[in-house]
């Protein structure tokens, strides 16, 4: 999860996020190298003795600084497009969960087999127990089985919201009257936090998302218990 003074991404919890992390490292390394080169050139220009003031052009260097950036851009674009299409691959989801945005909470529906619905409100700061995270915990978590492709259908009941879980590389806008679909696969068990990512009113910052990825038997036990309570 996120920690104070964090600059980079959170650890990946899904294959898509792993690929995004790798791509980010790739692009960032290129950016740092180019920035180092530009910095060097700036220092060299500032410290020059102002000889060769009347050079108008140089075919060789102009060819280099045209072709090299084009090659670099292609080397950035190829993995980028690969990930773009990877994220849109057709998979066979084992489970469908509907996430509905409200002002200011999320409601979830597991309707594949039985009707399992619940709302997830943020736990107020004064009600937190030691070890819980401020502005991130909810009273009910979205429990999903590990290593199972899941379809998430996102929509909203009132205004625009956005369902986002950074560690899984998932963000999907919740638009009233529209059903958006995204895919999710938790690589490992754990608890993953997200927050509403589209301004939706006074408590936009106070409607988090918590996903709890558990082994399949635990998920079955949880869903059976939820149905018993309902």
């Amino acid at each position, binding site marked *: 999860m996120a920690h104070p003074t964090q*600059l*980079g991404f959170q650890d990946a919890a899904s294959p898509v996020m792993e690929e995004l992390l790798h791509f980010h490292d790739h692009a*960032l390394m290129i950016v740092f190298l180019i920035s180092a080169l530009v910095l060097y050139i700036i220092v060299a220009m500032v410290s020059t003795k102002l000889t060769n003031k009347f050079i108008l052009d140089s075919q060789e260097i102009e060819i280099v600084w045209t072709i090299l950036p084009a090659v670099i851009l292609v080397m950035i674009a190829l993995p980028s497009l690969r990930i773009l299409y990877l994220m849109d691959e057709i998979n066979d989801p084992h489970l469908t969960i509907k996430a509905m945005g409200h002002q200011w909470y999320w409601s979830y529906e597991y309707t594949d087999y039985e009707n399992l619905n619940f709302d997830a409100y943020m736990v107020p700061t004064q009600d937190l127990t030691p070890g819980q995270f401020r502005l991130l915990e909810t009273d009910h978590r979205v429990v999903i089985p590990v290593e199972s492709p899941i379809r998430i259908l996102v929509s909203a009941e009132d205004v625009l919201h956005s369902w986002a879980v950074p560690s899984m590389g998932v963000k999907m806008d919740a638009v009233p009257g529209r059903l958006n679909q995204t895919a999710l696969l938790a690589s490992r068990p754990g608890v993953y936090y997200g927050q509403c990512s589209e301004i939706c009113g006074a408590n936009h910052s106070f409607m988090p998302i918590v996903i709890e990825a558990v082994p399949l038997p635990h998920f079955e036990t949880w869903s059976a218990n939820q149905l018993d309570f309902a």
Partner: protein
Amino acid sequence: MTDEGDKSQGMKVMGVLDIQNMPCARESILHGAGGSLVVGIVHFLATSRVKRSFDVGVAGFMLTTLGSWFYCRYNNAKLRVQQRMIQDGLKNKLIYEGTNLDPTRKKTGDQ
């Protein structure tokens, strides 16, 4: 004792670029440093121009690092794809063993 937890953090440039733990980063930087040194020294030995040789060395560093980086990341990406295919294959084998969907099951003519 207290260093054991720090090993995984690595050396981060600007707080984000983890050179120590990022695949291919350390090798690319080292290749770039070596290439820069070689190219710069060769140019200096050939021309005896210090500043220009330094410029050539920097250009050599850029090109060698980038070339090594692209080559290594491409191979790393292919390896990750193979790793994922193997993992999926193992998972499918475990789940579907003995059934019609067993990926290792030989197809017979009448099916």
